[in-house]
């Protein structure tokens, strides 16, 4: 499932990330826990929480990241 489509406040684990160094360097990488906090309207970004940090990430980046829900 794409990160962009994830329901708010659902705990997920990142399954795959496009090979962009900046994503990895910001801590967005495979196997990491992630949760969508906010979804902005009008094509705006989603805000995700990774560890103790919030990152605003655009639709274009987020749709390429796949996640799996943690049950």
């Amino acid at each position, binding site marked *: 499932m794409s990160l962009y489509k994830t329901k708010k406040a659902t705990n997920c684990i990142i399954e795959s990330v496009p090979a962009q160094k900046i994503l990895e360097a*910001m*801590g967005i*990488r495979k196997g990491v826990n992630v949760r969508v*906090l906010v979804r*902005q309207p009008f*094509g*705006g970004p989603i805000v995700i929480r990774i560890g103790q*940090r919030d990152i605003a*990430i655009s639709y274009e980046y987020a749709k390429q990241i796949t996640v799996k829900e943690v049950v």
Partner: protein
Amino acid sequence: MRCSVNKKENPMSGDIPKILLIGNPNVGKSVVFSKLTGHAVIASNYTGTTVSYSSGKVKLHEKQALLTDVPGIYSLEADSNAEEVALNLLNAGADAIICVLDATNLERNLNFALQLKELRIPLVFALNMMDVAEQKGIHISASALQKELGCPVIPTIAVRNIGLAELVRQAFACMEQSDSIESSSLPSSEERWKEVGRITALVQRLEHRHSTIWERLGDSMIMPFPGVFIALLVLIVSLGVIAGGGRVLRAVILLPVINDIYAPFVSGIVSALLSEGMVRNILIGDYGILIKAIEWPFALILPYVLLFYIVLSFLEDTGYLPRLGVLGDGIMRRLGVQGSDLIPLMLGYGCAIPAILGTRTATTFKQRLIVSALIALAVPCISQTGAFIALLGDRSVPVLILVYLISLSVIFLGGLILKRLIPGQSSTILIEVPNLLMPNANAIFEKIWIRIKHFLIEAGIPMLIGIAVASLVAETGLLVNFSLLLEPIVVNWLGLPAEASLSLILGIIRRELAVLPLLEMDLSTVQLLIGSIVSLFYIPCLAVLGILIKEFGIKIAAAISVSTVIFALFFAGLLNQAINLILLLL
């Protein structure tokens, strides 16, 4: 006003050892730098405040070293302007590195720390923001981390000057033992993250805490609801403080002092010494240098500059601005830019120079150019805002509001057009939302002082020159010649009095000087509007032209300047003709 971010000293000066201050963005490097060197650099609570490096000396007893504040980077691999600057500095060679780590975000900072270790340069870590981490229930053992990293780790709270003396001692000490660095093999990125996970688990203990009121407030600021309402509230309060407070300072304190005490006093002395004539008029006439050189900068402009920077510095240090960027991204991306470009745009309402330098954080050239062009064209700097308020505040508040609405519309339409006109790609938003913090009073005070000092130096002199030019051309009769030359444009097309040509001449020097001469003319409401619109879009000031040339080259700078002049005259004239036509039909 030139911002201190481009202050450079020759890093080659002398043979003293070089220390680089490195770390992820927004971990407090610039605060550490200011405290250690005594050099004033602007630090804020968002990514990318430092866009170029500054250097300064640090001393320990008789020893000294050159410390360089490197722009924040996420890794030694990825590519961006900031990383290029940082890598060049690293490649130029350093005797030691002070790496600042954000204790509230240990994992990602550690990944960067491990990359730095691979460089095999003597390394000291500052584990910064220990206070914020404790508040969040994050406990880190600095001694355990030191053992794992094999380098000194000093817990610090840079804004309060805690741990920094020890940091300097360790930095000097590690340079002396530079030959005893263990060699570490180069791990793959996956192995490095594994190592990060292992170290984090060993040294960090997370205690579950209910989120503090600041955390909850920070979160609600980026929700569409109530975020938009909070944004409106922040905007209204900010405008109230700047416009309302400025009016009080100006009308209650500064103008009475100047008009009732200073001006009569100076006029009295000059009148007693000089008989009526040109020299006396140059000194105390309509554009009298001795009067206007005090009234314009100090009574009309400075109150707004001061209040704007109080508000801006506060918003910067709380970490609110990136949140506004997140909220505004949906709109900004329609203009070919993204939410984080909202920050330089907002800096532009203070001064275009730090704003244009700030666009270096924009990820693509196209975005930099769009933001810079919009700032040069349609974002009035605070000096110009002060002048608009002086001109329109008492005579026609609706015109004042209309000028700002027109400015906003042109920014929006300009973005839509430039997005299509300028070739290249725009990147989309990917930014860290910083912790929402209560700003440190000392840090804010220092920052405001830096900015006011810059304003007085960088803006004061051109303003004096402008006022001198105004006085000379008005009193020597040169103005009449200029006015005749520009009459077809100024009188026929724009519908302004002939002497308004003075605005077009002075406006080249500084933005507010295009507005202030209008104060001395008896203008109708329509003329007030047209005069304001011309000066709003007219060429940015000489200093901005300089920075545009430096950042984009002469061709682009010339293109921006010429198009702003043409647009200003064309648009304002068209508006004038349309209004006249409507008035005629009514």
